């Protein structure tokens, strides 16, 4: 708890510090990290806490992003309407996809969630009225009663959402519901055999995670003032999965740490040129996933509980 408060204080102070050092570009970067942290945390609820290996989480992020963006170009500029609609749309998508996918197990579940997400990807690709494969450019950010055009204001809104979601996940993990889904992760047949209808609980978990993913999508669209079908592509689902695995599967801070490490790494690779590597592989900077791959390998091999697990072990030692 103390540690969480310390992190929150640092996050609150960050924009001032960046302004002081004249690095305000990083405010926007930090918002992006936090939005991905929300998306990865929502996937972690399904994957880490619920034990459902969903490979289609980008579908829900994308549904939220498109729902909010379509509303915006149709003239609904209030975030008070657009964001709840985005969340509900993503929840509905998760309900539909979950109701079909959760009848399968194991590798079939992975494949069917992937298939649904790809269907959604091709669907938005063909929505010519809303940009098709070129995506939608927005003229601004939705309005929250005050303007979100200011990067610092937007940063604090995203920070508020991320803090709220981490707090709620912290509570959920210890609630009746949280215990049930974690028990199902360990042994779903046994959970059914002591009286829990597995399908209903897993579907509820899936829908909650989808809804939060939709919020992340709406924030992502507002952040970039742009959305394209790429947010629904399967590689996005993969990126979110990598974030969760890097950060810590089933760990409260897993999504946050994974998003921060992965995006920072991408940023470093793209912006800081290493001479000898560039002479060897001239366009290596366009392939940040190489560095991500190396880090992922190291984490999986040496820190099976992710970065969060590593930190927890240090603290206990």
């Amino acid at each position, binding site marked *: 708890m103390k540690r969480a408060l310390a992190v929150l204080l640092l996050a609150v102070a960050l924009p001032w510090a960046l302004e002081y050092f004249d690095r305000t570009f990083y405010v926007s970067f930090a918002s992006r990290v936090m939005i991905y942290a929300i998306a990865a945390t929502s996937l972690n609820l399904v994957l880490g806490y619920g034990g459902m290996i969903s490979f289609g989480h980008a579908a829900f992020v994308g549904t939220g992003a498109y729902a909010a963006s379509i509303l915006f170009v149709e003239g609904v500029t209030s975030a008070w309407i657009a964001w709840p609609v985005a969340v509900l749309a993503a929840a509905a998508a998760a309900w539909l996809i979950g109701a079909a996918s959760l009848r399968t197990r194991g590798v079939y579940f992975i494949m069917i969630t992937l298939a649904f997400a790809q269907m959604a990807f091709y669907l938005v690709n063909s929505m010519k009225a809303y940009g098709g494969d070129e995506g939608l450019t927005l003229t601004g950010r939705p309005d929250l009663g005050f303007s979100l055009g200011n990067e610092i204001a937007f940063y604090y809104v995203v920070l508020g959402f991320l803090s709220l979601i981490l707090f*709620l996940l912290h*509570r*959920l993990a*210890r*609630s*009746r*519901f*949280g*215990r*049930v889904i974690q*028990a199902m992760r*360990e*042994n779903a*047949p*046994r*959970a*059914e*055999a*002591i*009286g*829990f*209808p*597995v399908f209903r*609980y897993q579907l*509820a978990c899936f829908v909650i995670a989808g809804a939060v993913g939709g919020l992340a999508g709406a924030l992502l669209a507002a952040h970039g003032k742009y959305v394209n079908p790429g947010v629904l592509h399967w590689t996005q689902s993969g990126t979110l999965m990598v974030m969760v695995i890097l950060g810590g599967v089933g760990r409260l801070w897993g999504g946050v740490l994974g998003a921060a490490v992965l995006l920072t790494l991408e940023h470093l690779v793209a912006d800081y040129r290493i001479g000898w590597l560039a002479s060897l592989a001239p366009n290596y900077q366009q392939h940040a996933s190489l560095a991500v791959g190396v880090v992922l390998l190291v984490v999986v091999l040496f820190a099976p509980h992710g970065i969060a697990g590593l930190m927890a072990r240090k603290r206990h030692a």
Partner: protein
Amino acid sequence: MLELKAVSKRFGGVVATDRVSMQVRQGEVHALIGPNGAGKTTLVNLISGGLAIDSGEMLFERKPLGNLKQSRRVLAGLARSYQITSIFRGMTVLDNLALAVQARSGTSFSFFNSITSERRLFDEAASIGEEVGLKAKLGSISSTLAHGEQRALEVGLALATKPRLVLLDEPMAGMGPEESARMVALIETIRAKVTVLLVEHDMDAVFRLADRISVLVNGRVIASGTPAEIRADPAVKTAYLGEEAPA
């Protein structure tokens, strides 16, 4: 209590359960015996709802079970334990049992309040743990328990659902004589509260505990009766008990 009428189940060309009819009466310990591959575990799966029957009918407390889901059957008072231990291995013994108590005490669609504030769940779980002889192990992670203790937890999980009929699938599987004796004693103590359908290979235990016995061979019930009747039944002798029949 439980009535099976011509229940059948086939897997491809194999008839695992062949028009089985039998009754388990309220308050009795009813043993189900038979050689390996006779279809005992399949029958337990059919009754508990883990598998769907192909034909026939099952009545529990006079109500047809139909295709009621397994979790609903548990809430209706029909629970089971597994031949191959199936527990929540990463959790403590107390948490395992508290989950089973939780399942029958109100909705678990509760997302915010901490479970640890529900003292009653854990008090009840602890008393069940004590009943199955795990009082000293309540705080242990269940995967660290000895085999016999895991078997006791397995049965404890079924009992923690407060069943009126419990299906115990080879509770003594892999146990030494001392542990078996403890399990027999446990079944002796619960029989006053709950009807038991006991699948077991340990014939000493079966003949000590059972009020009635049904014998399953090749998916069919070839005999049903008191231990004395079963012992005297010539068909049972040839098909199953052979020379191992206790005197």
